[in-house]
């Protein structure tokens, strides 16, 4: 599939800022989707509210742009009503982990076949840079002018604990690994979750001395530690703190029966 068969060129210009990581994730996703030979006519992209949740609107397929935080719940109903469809969710840290946290953990637990891609930029970008549930401790945002006193969620570890069949985390600096993980997630039966730590130079970097996107990518490269190595080094990988390290890698790859298999839904007449 050619790049411009995949995207809706007529919907440009897009809403993303210069230097945003969304384009990198979209490109990796396109490569994974295209390499697997999946059909756009049999795939629905679902988004919630936020910058990353706008991605479905630019892909040349059916799209469901839903309410804030509920994309996984919408996608669950869609997938179970029509198991012939591949359902992919694009979401962000606020959409998935804050307002949608309940649907996220229960989605992992229920294990319906969904591919969920969370672009985690550690900030509320669309509304102008407020702290999110993944903003690192002591980092600045418009709602943490004295530094963030809370500690961030580790979305990937939550997904593992909640029961997702596939969980991986990469940064926008590791495009090759990210593309491979997206492929694995798209092929997976059951709930597949890929978290991508991404740069928001406009609303995160600018307030934290990394206004140039390349500074953020450099920071991702320096901070990334492979999960297997992080374990042996006895690093506290549960506390994802960008100030210290970003644990990356495949977190889990297992084959629990999917919800569809368990209830015997194949295709409704």
């Amino acid at each position, binding site marked *: 599939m050619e790049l411009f068969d995949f995207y809706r060129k007529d*919907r440009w210009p897009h809403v993303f800022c210069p230097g945003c990581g969304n384009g990198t994730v979209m490109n990796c996703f396109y490569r994974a989707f295209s390499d697997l030979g999946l059909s*756009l006519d*049999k795939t629905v992209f679902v988004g919630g509210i936020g910058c990353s949740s706008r991605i479905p609107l630019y892909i040349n397929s*059916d799209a469901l742009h839903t*309410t804030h935080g509920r994309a996984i719940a919408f996608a669950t*109903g869609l997938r179970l*009503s*029509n198991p012939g469809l591949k359902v992919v969710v694009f979401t962000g840290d606020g959409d998935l982990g804050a307002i949608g946290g309940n649907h996220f953990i229960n989605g992992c637990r229920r294990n319906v076949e969904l591919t969920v891609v969370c672009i985690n930029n550690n900030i509320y970008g669309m509304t102008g840079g407020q702290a999110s549930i993944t903003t690192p401790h002591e980092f600045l945002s418009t709602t943490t002018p004295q530094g963030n006193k809370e500690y961030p969620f580790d979305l990937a570890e939550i997904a593992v604990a909640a029961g997702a069949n596939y969980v991986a985390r990469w940064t926008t600096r590791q495009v090759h690994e990210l593309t491979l993980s997206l492929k694995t997630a798209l092929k997976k039966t059951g709930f597949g979750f890929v978290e991508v730590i991404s740069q928001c130079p406009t609303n995160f970097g600018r307030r934290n001395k990394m206004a140039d996107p390349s500074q953020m990518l450099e920071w991702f490269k320096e901070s990334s530690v492979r999960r297997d190595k992080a374990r042996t080094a006895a690093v506290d990988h549960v506390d994802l703190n960008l100030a210290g390290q970003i644990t990356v890698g495949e977190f889990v790859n297992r084959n629990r029966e999917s919800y569809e298999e368990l209830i*015997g839904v194949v295709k409704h007449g």
Partner: protein
Amino acid sequence: MKAQAGEYFLQGNEACVEGAITAGVRFFAGYPITPSTEIAEGLARRLTGKDGTFLQMEDEIACISAVIGASWGGMKAMTATSGPGFSLMQEAIGYAAMSETPILIVNVMRGGPSTGQPTRASQGDVMQTKWGSHGDYQVIAFAPASVQEMFDLTVEALNYSEKYRVPGFLLSDAEVGHMRGLLRIPEDVKIVDRKELGRKRLDEAYDVPDDLVHPFPVFGQGHKAVITGMTHTEDSRIEPEDEKVHEELVTRLNEKVLKNRKDINKWDLMCPGSKTMIVSYGAAALGPMEIAAANDKVGLLRLKSVWPLPEEPIAEVARECDQMLVCEMNLGQLFGDIKRVALEAGCRKVELLSKIGGDPPTPSDVRHRLKQMGGV
């Protein structure tokens, strides 16, 4: 799968389950809440996976979200809840209105505000049904007063929801939902399915049809439909900054219900032409029904659909009577609108009998109030 025709002795909530199956519901997502839970339990037994999907979700927001998703997958889908769950669903109800998604929401009303009276009947959510989500929108809502109507009006609510691509509501209550009575399921029940886009392209559907309802592009058929709660054009392009697009869209969403009011509205009239007329609906009408049956000086207009408000029959009754009594199980939610319509039609006196606390007004409550008004 269909409900077996015949006569049954059932609970109101169980009759709703049979109505849903008959109308073609094959997807249900629910969360336990008194006094609606029997609907979820009933559908859990019927939708077993191969012939439809039952889902117990993590909360009511997830329920209605899943139901909207299932509708876009091409299935008739519904949820059932009561006050607190209904409050949680409001944002997504606005989404269903904006995205023109046919779904059914059954609200078996209980006393509120807040946790209120979980096991007792109320009509406290009537205004919330119409005004609960932000922005201007319309809904279609029916209010059953018997076990039979729990079946009939479930089918109607689904039919009209499909026909107009609008969220449909069954506004029942703990009294009607839990009452037991006779249900006759006929051999032939009229079922309406949404008008699908089929093989047409999405851009062939831009022209606004006479009934203001666009054909429905089911996902997975190559339409490349973009469904969104943002202000959008007919070819699903988001245009949140465009005043004209917003005005045209929201006006059409409202008019497709209001202009088709005569098609949607259902009511029942007892002793028409009486000088004293009662207007009521749902369980609140049970007492008035007994009075109107026993007294030829008192008539009853019983609204079977409450949204859009059946203004024409209310005005017609108001023109012919001297005085009107509105009977509700809240502190007067429809009273204001009914009074406006009745006064405009020339009725001189419109009063309210409201009863809250859990029991519908008894015939003697109604008789007492009519005596005060000088009607009996």
